[in-house]
């Protein structure tokens, strides 16, 4: 993987100027490369990873929902997946192998909002044969980031 992507994946706020220094490349070249990743869709967007459990005001609940569906003629799973992922409540949607077909991550204000979504929007879809909802109790790690204040040993400040 290009080092530019490695840098951005870890910290999207590193400036083009600093990246150019780190990689020993002209700024224009770095800029151009990033632009091309953006236009190709390799870089989809830049966003912050939040630990919402620390927010006082806006708490939300997440649920992982296993969805069993019957694939449709000619469209396979894609059509039904699209039906589902277009709901704004759906954060992530994956087609998976195994005992069920789609893994859908839904975010809502509270338990009721999520269960209403499942009962009123998801389950009634004719292609949906069944759902199992897992409410998420605690996030330990998201997108490679451990959601915990750093602790552990500190290096001493000076050694040979």
């Amino acid at each position, binding site marked *: 993987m290009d*080092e530019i992507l*490695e*840098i951005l994946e870890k910290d999207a706020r*590193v400036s083009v100027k*600093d990246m150019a*220094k*780190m*990689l*020993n490349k002209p700024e224009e070249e770095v800029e151009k490369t990033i632009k091309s990743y953006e236009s190709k869709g390799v870089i989809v967007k830049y966003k912050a990873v939040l630990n919402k459990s620390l927010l006082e005001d806006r708490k939300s609940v997440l649920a992982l929902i296993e969805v069993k569906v019957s694939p449709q003629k000619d469209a396979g799973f894609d059509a039904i997946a699209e039906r589902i992922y277009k709901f704004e409540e759906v954060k992530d949607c994956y087609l998976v192998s195994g005992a069920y077909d789609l893994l859908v991550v839904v975010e809502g204000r509270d338990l009721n909002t999520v269960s209403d979504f499942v009962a009123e929007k998801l389950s009634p879809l004719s292609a949906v044969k069944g759902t199992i909802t897992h409410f998420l109790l605690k996030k330990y790690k998201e997108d490679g980031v451990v959601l915990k204040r750093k602790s*552990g*040993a500190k*290096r*001493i*400040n*000076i*050694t*040979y």
Partner: protein
Amino acid sequence: MISEKVKNMAPSGIREFFDLVLEMKDVISLGVGEPDFVAPWRIREKAITCLEDGFTSYTSNRGLLRLRMEVSSFLKKKYGLNYRPESEILITVGVSQGLDLAVRAIVNPGDKIIIVRPCYVSYPAVVELAGGKSLFLDTKAEENFKINLSRLSSLLKQKPKAIILNYPCNPTGVSYTKRELAEIWKVLSRAGVIVISDEIYDQLSFDFPHTPFPALPLAKGKTVYLGGFSKNYAMTGFRVGYACADKKIIEAMTKIHSYVMLCAPIISQFAAVEALSNSRDVNYMFREYRRRRNFVVEGLNSLNLPTIVPQGAFYCFSSIAGARFKSSLEFAKALLFKEKVAVVPGSAFGDKYGKFVRISFAQDIGLLKEALSRIGRFVRSRL
């Protein structure tokens, strides 16, 4: 009460400075000679399992055969080196101990050993404690801190028993290409000296492939090759490394080892086996260090602290000649008090290097950036 030898060791001014740094809070430290990464989880997890499984005993003096076999095949695969696990490899308590054993195994009282400066601080002390005498080969900034062959040749006339090499080098980051090493070996082989080669930073060679000294034609029999886990795998606290050499030398080193140390810690040895089994994390750290290197060298040079590009390791050895300080110790103290940035005075690495400081880039890039801006402010205030 204390022996003369010990009393005379270590430059005292530097010790004082270190104590100052250790007492101060909120310092951005570029004074550290170890990775800022923690050892990869797979390695730590292995150590935990090892404890759970009850591996709390001694191992054989030479170290776990399993680890020696892994070291042997690692060196074979990576560098084409052939060391026999049964007789030519010793597992040590870090390269530190490997170095001490190597020197003690070969030095008779009064024997001379060439040390290339600026150098890692333990070399002169280890030679001294073993009853040897150091011959210093001081490299120069205007020669990019590389070994000058004609000065090497003239030192060899004093019939030294051995030379200690270190590349990539702490504190300069200097390393040598295969061709440069061949030139050095040509001079050394004629003199018949033993080469103790500290290659602890071997996997942090940024600009060209690393060539181990024993990989040079006919050099293996004359070389004590020292390698370790501290830097490459961010395992400084595990205290484990390896020495590879001719059977006779390894036997002699093992003899001392069996009396003074018995063996390296068993948990660390298992962790080292795990370390060698995968290079993904090493490769990641390598790229990160290289990016930091580029960033910091550019920064320092633009601040008028001339810095040659370190080809390996994670240090810049920067000249402070333009900043109007009596010595690098004064510079480091003032920088610490005014801007809370710690660097190591160059005089720690040889008395001729009072106009340099060692700046470690084994630090988070965000902190490096902040430190550079503080150093910039500091340097400008002195102009």
